[in-house]
């Protein structure tokens, strides 16, 4: 039993560090450091750099463009990315629809869609959730009625993250109303330029339209855009939901955020002549959070080690989602507490690209509340933390 990196792994770590130091664009890094919101172009530019290096899709099978890395290499990569604040590739194409396409798609679909995802030529968004189907996803009501070589799609999808940028959307739609709800669902890929699609922004608590509602009004989708068999979509979707568990806990990012928080607290006056780090109440919270993240890190390493010897990440990894998102959210709270008065001004526009007005408050302090509000999403999305507890009860505890 040991967690030391091998010589090869250390060499790999060095390579990743050098690559990120040289290739992660300075202007994007500056934005991240100053908490400026990244725009579409930033993501695409960075993803194309990763693509050219061959590192954009570590989890894909090698034959489709994956890296063939071990679990440890993936972990090292995630750690180094977090260290410089490099954003992970946007998940919807890379981590969500691509595995479904390469696992269940036809050869033609693989050729048609995978290269553009890998190269970041096409921006995807998800079309799972509906206004009345959240955690109970299978109760979705968007319909697709077969008409010759097309499906006619009607309904509303919601929580489409960054859907305003999307070229394509992958959707779960109801193709049979007469059977058990899970058995009448199909998986469709839909071109966002198709007539009848309307995207409406939803503003979140941080003042940003990060998500959207997408309306489908008699949208014609070629049958060839269906993945796999009709009415088998739920099976494919479930695989997608459990497929990608690497880095689900966000440990590397939380570790870096803790390091920065400690420095920040050391430089923040406590109003009594010392620094916030001298405040025993704050110091204790910081220590407890560090300890929690340490426990989480080893829980994740144990999962990775199990995966690397061929065991699938079991339902046990639901704990990574629960504990990881709660840790992230708690860190948001601590950042906001450090900012104190400076967290109150609500000025989302000053964290937009290209803002050239006079900013309120000091370096990013006013962004802390925006992050706090925004990240409440983490315990809700990806199967809410209550759903994760249901999974633990059913699949691990046998309840």
């Amino acid at each position, binding site marked *: *039993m*040991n*967690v*030391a*990196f091998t010589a090869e792994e250390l060499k790999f770590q060095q390579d990743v560090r050098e690559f990120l130091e040289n290739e992660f664009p300075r202007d994007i890094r500056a934005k991240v450091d100053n908490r400026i919101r990244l725009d579409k172009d930033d993501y695409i530019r960075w993803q194309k750099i990763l693509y050219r290096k061959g590192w954009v899709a570590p989890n894909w099978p090698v034959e489709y463009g994956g890296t063939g890395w071990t*679990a*440890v290499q993936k972990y090292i990569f995630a750690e180094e990315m977090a260290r410089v604040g490099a954003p992970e590739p946007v998940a919807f194409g890379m981590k969500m629809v691509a595995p479904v396409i390469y696992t269940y798609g036809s050869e033609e679909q693989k050729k048609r869609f995978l290269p553009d995802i890998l190269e970041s030529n096409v921006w995807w968004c998800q079309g799972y959730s509906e206004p009345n189907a959240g955690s109970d996803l299978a109760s979705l009501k968007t319909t697709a009625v077969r008409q010759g070589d097309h499906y006619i799609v009607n309904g509303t999808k919601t929580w489409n993250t960054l859907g305003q940028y999307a070229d394509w959307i992958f959707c779960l739609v109801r193709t049979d109303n007469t059977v058990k709800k899970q058995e009448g669902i199909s998986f469709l890929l839909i071109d966002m330029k198709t007539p009848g699609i309307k995207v409406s922004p939803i503003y979140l608590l941080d003042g940003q339209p990060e998500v959207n509602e997408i309306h489908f009004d008699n949208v014609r989708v070629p049958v060839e855009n269906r993945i796999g068999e009709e009415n088998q979509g739920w099976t494919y979707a479930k695989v997608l939901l459990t497929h990608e568990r690497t880095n689900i806990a966000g440990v590397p990012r939380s570790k870096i955020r803790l390091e920065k928080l*400690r420095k920040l607290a050391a430089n923040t006056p406590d109003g009594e002549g010392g620094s916030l780090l001298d405040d025993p109440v704050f*110091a*204790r919270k*910081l*220590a*407890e959070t*560090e*300890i*929690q993240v*340490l*426990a*989480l*890190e*080893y*829980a994740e*390493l*144990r999962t*990775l*080690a*199990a995966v*690397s*010897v061929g065991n699938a990440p079991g339902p*046990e990894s639901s*704990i990574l989602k*629960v*504990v990881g998102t709660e840790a992230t959210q708690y860190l948001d709270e601590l950042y906001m507490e450090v900012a104190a008065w400076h967290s109150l001004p609500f000025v989302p526009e000053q964290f937009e690209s290209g803002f050239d007005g006079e900013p309120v408050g000091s370096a990013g302090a006013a962004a802390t509340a925006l992050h706090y509000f925004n990240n409440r999403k983490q315990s809700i999305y990806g199967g809410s933390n*209550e759903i*994760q*507890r*249901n999974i*633990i*009860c059913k699949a*691990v*505890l*046998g*309840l």
Partner: protein
Amino acid sequence: MDFSYSDEQQMLQDSVQKFVHRHYSFDMRRDILASDKGFSTEYWQLFAELGWLTVPFKAEDDGFGGLAVDLMVLMEEFGKAMVVEPFVPTTVLGGGLISELGSAQQRSEWLPQIMAGSLQLACATAEPDSRYNLASVGSSAVLQGDNWIVNGHKILVLNGPDADQLLVSVRTSGAVRDADGISVLMIDANSPGIHRKNYTNMDGHRAAEVKFANVGVPNDRVLGAIGKALPALEQVTDRAIVAVCAEAVGALDSLLNKTVEYSKTRKQFGTAIGTFQALQHRMADMFIECQLARSIVMMAAMRLDSDVPATDKMRAVSAAKSRVGKAIRKVGQEAVQMHGGIGITDELDVGHLFKRVTAIETLFGNSDHHTARFARLA
């Protein structure tokens, strides 16, 4: 990165599992606790024959190897069955101090006796006002001719009632709480001037309050350099912390499993209580606590076995003790709560597991103490 056990560790685990399965039912444990000594000398001999008493010791001392991970494997299984034999006091604490501080002659004299099962030890460090600070030593030893004259008062001496020898931290110079000036003496437990008040702790384990009044100790019974024992005391205590944390991990697993099983059979309002989501999610949270506790104890054990700086090891141990303490409160209390009335009776093993882990939470410093130590060492 490798979280698997070696073949030797696997065999060790198998052998402890077999033993507790055959010889350590809840009723058998009850009988042992009710006996005179509160542990089984017969089992102690069996532990020696099975080689378990060699686990904490280095290969050069003819031990199993002395890895913290080995200790973790053994203690986790002890924890599941609530083994009460004084393994930690005699081998990890007492043996650990002899191993760390003792001269070649002292090691070769005492360690074989420990591993053979013929010597019982106890470590006397805590004092009435010391709380968890190992440097807070008011008990004194003054050299007179060839003898040290010891005076003082030690509390919560685990295995104190049955120890043949006491390993006692004493102040040989400096003021109370000075890091320097602390020595360890190995004192015959039956020496004139020693008064032992024996008692039983909340978990059934035996302990003693020990008072020393002008106890004469020969100079060759000093372990290590005079006045320089604190680092070894801390290091040995840290290993004991990993041992009891691993024990707690095993006990918490038992508590979770018993609670889940009970919830599947106990019916209220015509249905198994395990079907109620109000209880299900709490059991999921217990599972999460168990997994985090297990993970952080593995971290601490691996760090003790690595070559990271001493401060990193201390931080790792404190992180584990702090986090395991929290898991103990949560899982222990929830297990009792979900068992309902039967959970608060003396009849059921759940309550006894609860008591043992609650004792572990306090042993060698509670969560608050170790959170503060973790923060201080940053």
